[in-house]
C-alpha cells in the first residue's frame, strides 16, 4: 500500500523529488545506482540498499501521510563542465539509472525509477559575449530567422530553430520551445501565403484562389526594424547639448570603427584634421582606422598634451588594461618642423620640450588591442621661441601576428595607388620601388626629395638644375643623366603585387632602358659659351599594364613591361643685354605613363562596321533593338514584368478589336 508518485522520473536537473504516499510509518528510503544495459530498464528489486552514494543523496521530508523524497546530485553542475576540455559537448554528462526503494521492515514495498540524463549547461560554460551571433544586414535577410540563437557555434537550449542543435538534442526540448518575438522562430507564415491557408484557421473564402506563392524567407517583416545607416532626424526644432557622455563600446571588445576607450571611460584622443583642415586636439581614435595627419600650431599657443604615457587603454582581454610603450627620440632637423626660427637671446630660461612627431602602432588581435607602441620625436626649443610648428601624428593598426615583412602592393595583381615594386640585382641596397621627384622650396634638384611611383597613376614631375654660363657641356649632360638615373635605380620590376623579392623567377621583368647618347659626343664643336646641344633633360617611363584575370570577381592587373627613354633639349643661356654671371636654370623632368593593353587585341573595325550603326544603340538614337522600347531592357522606368503584362493587355484589346472587325464578318458572310 505504499506508492511513489510519480513512479518514473526523467531527471535532467540537479535535483528531483517525488512523493511517497500510503502508510508511511517506519518506512526507510534507500537509493541504488543500477548498472544496466543501455535501453532496458531493469526490474525493480530490493538489492543492496543504502541511503547515500558518493554522487547522490536522498532526503526525506515527512508530511501529513506523505513523504517528500528528494534525490540530489551532490557534485554540482560544475563537475560537468570541468571535466570537459572542449567548450561544449552534445553527449550527456551524466547518464545513470537510479532506483529509490521504500522498505517497510526490510521488505520492499515501493520503487521509484529515476533516469538521469544531465547535459552540460552551456550557459554556465560560456560567457555569452564571447561568441555573439553575427546578425546579418536586415535589409537583405529576414529579420531574426532565429532570434533565440544567441551563441554562435553552439546549441542554445530550448531554441528549436537553432541550426546548430542536432536532432537528438532538439528532441530533448522540442516540447518546450521558446515562442514569441524573443524566442523561437518568429518568421511566422504571413496571412497571404498560400501554404498558410491549410494551417491557419479563419481564412477568407477566396483564399485558395488569391494567395501569394512565395518562400517563407520572403516575409513582410523583412527589414522592418531597419532605419538606415544614419537615421533621419524626425522633429523639426533645435536640439543642442553642449556636451555628452562618451559612449562606451569597449566592454565587449572593439569592433571596427568603435572609439578606443581609456580606463577612465574617456576617449583615447590624438589630434586629427577635421572641418576645413583645422586640427581637433581631442579627437577620438577609431579602432582599425589608420591616419597620418599634420597639424600646424602656433608655438605661443602650444600646450603639451598630457597623458600619452599614463593613458591606460581599456581592453577586454589581457586583464582589461593596455599601457602604451613609449620610446623617445630626438628630432634632428628642427627647420623641418618649426618655421620662423628666430631664436631669441638665451636669457637663461629653461628650454621646453615639444613633440614634433608621434607614431602610434596598435597591434590588434580579433577585437582586442594587444599592444601599443608609441614613438615620439621630441625637440628642445627655447622657452620663448616663436613661430609655427608642424606636428605629425601617425596611427597604424597592425595585426598582432604581422611581423616586419614587406608590404605587398596587391595579391596577386597590383592594386591601384600602391607602389610599383622594383629590385636592383646588382647592388644589394634596398631599392624597392621606382621614384620621381617631389620638388620642394624653389624647386631645385638639390632640394628635391623622392616619391614612389604608384601603380596606375600617371605622373609628371621635375626640378631645376643650376647652370652657369661657362658650364662644360659634357659635364652638364653627365649631371643631368645622373640626376635622372637616380630615379630609376632598379633593374627589375615586379609583374605582380606579390612577387617575391628573393626569387627572381617569380615574375620579375627587366626594365628596358634606352640609354642617353654618349655625353662626350658633341654634334658641334661646342666652343660657344652658354650653349649646349642634346642635353638629356626628360626621362619618360612607360609602363604597360593589362588585365590578367580575376580573383573572386575582382580584376587583377599586372605589369607587362617597363621602358625608360631619354629625350634631349638644347640649352642656351638666357640673358638680356648684359649677361651677368648668374646661374641659369635648366628644367629637367620625368614622367610616368601607364598604358593599358587589352588582354586580347580587338579586331580592327572595317569601314562597314564603323558606318553601319543600325544595331548599335550607343551611336544611333533609332537603332533597331529599341524598336519596341518599353518591352526591352533599355527601359528602366518600370519593372520589365509589369511592362510585359501591360503589353499583353494591350494586345488583348487589339485582338478583340480585330476579331470583331470587318474581315471576320466578311468570312462569316462567305460561309453563309
Amino acid at each position, binding site marked *: 500500500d505504499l506508492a511513489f508518485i510519480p513512479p518514473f522520473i526523467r531527471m535532467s536537473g540537479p535535483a528531483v523529488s517525488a512523493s511517497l504516499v500510503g502508510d508511511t510509518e517506519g518506512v526507510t528510503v534507500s537509493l541504488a545506482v543500477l548498472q544496466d544495459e543501455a535501453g532496458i530498464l531493469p526490474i525493480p528489486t530490493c538489492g543492496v540498499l543504502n541511503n547515500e552514494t558518493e554522487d547522490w543523496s536522498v532526503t526525506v521530508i515527512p508530511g501529513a501521510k506523505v513523504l517528500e523524497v528528494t534525490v540530489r546530485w551532490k557534485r554540482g553542475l560544475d563537475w560537468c563542465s570541468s571535466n570537459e576540455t572542449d567548450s561544449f559537448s552534445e553527449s550527456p554528462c551524466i547518464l545513470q539509472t537510479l532506483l529509490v526503494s521504500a522498505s517497510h521492515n526490510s521488505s520492499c514495498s515501493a520503487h521509484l525509477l529515476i533516469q538521469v540524463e544531465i547535459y552540460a549547461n552551456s550557459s554556465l560554460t560560456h560567457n555569452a559575449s564571447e561568441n555573439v551571433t553575427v546578425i546579418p544586414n536586415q535589409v537583405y535577410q529576414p529579420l531574426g530567422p532565429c532570434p533565440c540563437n544567441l551563441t554562435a557555434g553552439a546549441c542554445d537550449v530550448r531554441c528549436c530553430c537553432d541550426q546548430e542543435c542536432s536532432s537528438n538534442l532538439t528532441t530533448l526540448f522540442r516540447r518546450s520551445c521558446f515562442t514569441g518575438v524573443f524566442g523561437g522562430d518568429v518568421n511566422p507564415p504571413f496571412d497571404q501565403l498560400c501554404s498558410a491557408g491549410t494551417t491557419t484557421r479563419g481564412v477568407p473564402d477566396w483564399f485558395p484562389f488569391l494567395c501569394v506563392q512565395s518562400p517563407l524567407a520572403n516575409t513582410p517583416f523583412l527589414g522592418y526594424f531597419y532605419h*538606415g*545607416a*544614419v*537615421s*533621419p*532626424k524626425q522633429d*523639426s*526644432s*533645435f*536640439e*543642442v*547639448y*553642449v*556636451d*555628452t557622455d*562618451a*559612449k562606451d563600446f569597449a566592454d565587449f571588445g572593439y569592433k571596427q570603427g568603435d*572609439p578606443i576607450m581609456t580606463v577612465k571611460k574617456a*576617449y583615447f584622443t590624438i589630434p*586629427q*584634421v*577635421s*572641418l*576645413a583642415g*583645422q586640427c*581637433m*586636439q*581631442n*579627437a*577620438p581614435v*577609431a579602432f582599425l*582606422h589608420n*591616419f597620418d595627419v599634420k597639424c600646424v600650431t*602656433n608655438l605661443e*599657443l602650444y600646450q603639451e598634451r598630457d597623458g600619452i604615457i599614463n593613458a591606460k587603454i581599456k581592453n577586454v582581454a589581457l586583464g582589461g588594461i593596455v599601457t602604451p610603450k613609449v620610446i623617445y627620440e630626438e628630432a634632428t632637423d628642427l627647420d623641418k618642423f618649426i618655421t620662423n626660427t628666430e631664436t631669441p637671446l638665451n636669457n637663461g630660461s629653461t628650454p621646453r620640450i615639444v613633440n614634433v612627431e608621434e607614431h602610434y602602432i596598435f597591434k590588434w588581435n580579433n577585437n582586442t588591442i594587444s599592444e601599443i607602441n608609441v614613438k615620439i620625436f621630441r625637440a628642445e626649443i627655447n622657452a620663448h621661441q616663436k613661430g609655427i610648428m608642424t606636428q605629425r601624428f601617425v596611427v597604424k593598426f597592425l595585426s598582432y601576428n604581422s611581423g616586419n615583412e614587406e608590404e605587398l602592393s596587391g595579391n596577386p595583381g597590383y592594386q591601384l595607388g600602391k607602389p610599383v615594386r622594383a629590385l636592383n640585382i646588382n647592388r644589394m641596397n634596398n631599392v624597392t620601388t621606382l621614384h620621381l621627384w617631389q620638388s620642394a622650396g624653389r624647386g631645385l634638384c638639390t632640394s628635391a626629395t623622392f616619391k614612389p611611383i604608384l601603380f596606375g597613376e600617371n605622373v609628371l614631375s621635375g626640378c631645376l638644375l643650376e647652370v652657369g654660363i661657362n658650364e662644360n657641356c659634357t659635364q652638364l649632360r653627365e649631371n643631368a643623366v645622373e640626376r635622372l638615373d637616380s630615379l630609376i635605380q632598379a633593374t627589375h620590376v615586379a609583374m605582380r603585387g606579390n612577387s617575391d623579392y628573393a626569387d627572381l623567377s617569380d615574375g620579375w621583368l627587366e626594365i628596358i632602358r634606352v640609354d642617353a647618347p654618349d655625353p662626350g659626343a658633341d654634334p658641334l664643336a661646342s666652343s660657344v659659351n652658354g650653349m649646349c646641344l642634346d642635353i638629356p633633360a626628360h626621362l619618360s617611363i612607360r609602363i604597360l599594364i593589362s588585365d590578367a584575370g580575376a580573383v573572386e570577381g575582382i580584376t587583377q592587373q599586372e605589369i607587362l613591361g617597363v621602358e625608360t627613354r631619354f629625350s634631349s633639349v638644347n640649352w642656351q643661356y638666357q640673358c638680356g643685354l648684359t649677361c651677368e654671371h648668374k646661374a641659369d636654370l635648366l628644367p629637367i623632368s620625368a614622367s610616368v605613363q601607364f598604358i593599358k593593353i587589352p588582354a586580347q587585341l580587338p579586331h580592327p573595325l572595317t569601314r562597314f562596321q564603323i558606318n553601319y550603326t543600325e544595331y548599335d544603340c550607343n551611336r544611333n*538614337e*533609332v537603332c533597331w533593338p*529599341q*524598336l519596341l*522600347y*518599353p518591352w526591352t531592357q533599355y*527601359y*528602366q*522606368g*518600370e519593372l520589365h514584368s*509589369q*511592362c510585359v503584362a*501591360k503589353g499583353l493587355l*494591350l494586345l488583348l484589346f487589339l485582338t478583340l478589336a480585330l476579331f470583331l472587325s470587318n474581315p471576320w*464578318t*466578311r468570312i*462569316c*458572310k*462567305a*460561309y*453563309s
Partner: protein
Amino acid sequence: MALYELFSHPVERSYRAGLCSKAALFLLLAAALTYIPPLLVAFRSHGFWLKRSSYEEQPTVRFQHQVLLVALLGPESDGFLAWSTFPAFNRLQGDRLRVPLVSTREEDRNQDGKTDMLHFKLELPLQSTEHVLGVQLILTFSYRLHRMATLVMQSMAFLQSSFPVPGSQLYVNGDLRLQQKQPLSCGGLDARYNISVINGTSPFAYDYDLTHIVAAYQERNVTTVLNDPNPIWLVGRAADAPFVINAIIRYPVEVISYQPGFWEMVKFAWVQYVSILLIFLWVFERIKIFVFQNQVVTTIPVTVTPRGDLCKEHLS
C-alpha cells in the same frame, strides 16, 4: 426639269475567291504593307518613344534645424571658431567652441501650405580682438516631392564665403535648387537619400571633415545646392558686436525630369502611329479597289443584295 443628285450611297460589291488563292495572298500582303511600315516610319523619324519628360512642382522643404558652422579668424589670432547642433561635434572643439544665437523662421508667402523661404540669422559672439575672415556653414533640409514619384531625402545647403577684410555680417539671399544626375521614376517611393548628411552621432573627427561630408553628398544622384550668385560681405564691425550671418533661402518651383511610365509612353507612340497609319490605309484601299475592279487577281465579283443580317441568321 433639271435633275439634281439629292442622295447617294455606295453599292457594296464583294469578290469571292478561295482562301489559298492569289487574291487572298494579295490581301495578306496588302495588310502587312499597310500596318507595319507606319510603325517603321514613325520610329525612324525620331521621337517615337518618349524617353524623358518633365513636370513642375514646388517641393515641400523643411529646415531640419541642424547647423554646422566654422568661422575662420584672422589675421592676428589665426584660429577658428566652430559650433554645431551635434553634441559629439561640439565636444571635439574644446576651447574653439562658441555658441551663437540662432534664429530661424520659415515663411509661406502664398498660403499654399508649402513653405517658400527660410529666414536664418546667426549671431556669433566675438571678442574685440577676433576678426572673422571666412565662414563655412552647413544647413540641412528635409526635401520632399509628391506629384510623380514620392521623393523623400535629406539634403544640405553649403555656404562658404570669405573675404580678405574682416567682416561684420554676411548676407546671403539664394535659392535651394534641386540637382538631378538621373531622372526620377514615374511612381513609387524614392527614399534612397533619406539619410542624414552629417553623421551627428559619430564622435570621430573624420566624420566632420568638410571634404568627407561634401564627397559623400556628391555621391548622390539627387542633391540640392544653394544657388547664391551674390553673397555680400559687410564690413565694419563694432568692437563688441557679434558676427552676423543673415541668410534668406528660397524654395523655388523646380522643373523635375522623370522617366515616363508605360502607358504614357504607349499613348504618345499610338498617336504618332495612327496618324501615319491613316495615310497608308487610304492609299492601300485605293490600290485594293483598283486591283479587284480590274481583275488583276482572279475573283468572282458578286453584288451584294441587301439581305440584312444573313450572317446572324446563320449563326443562330
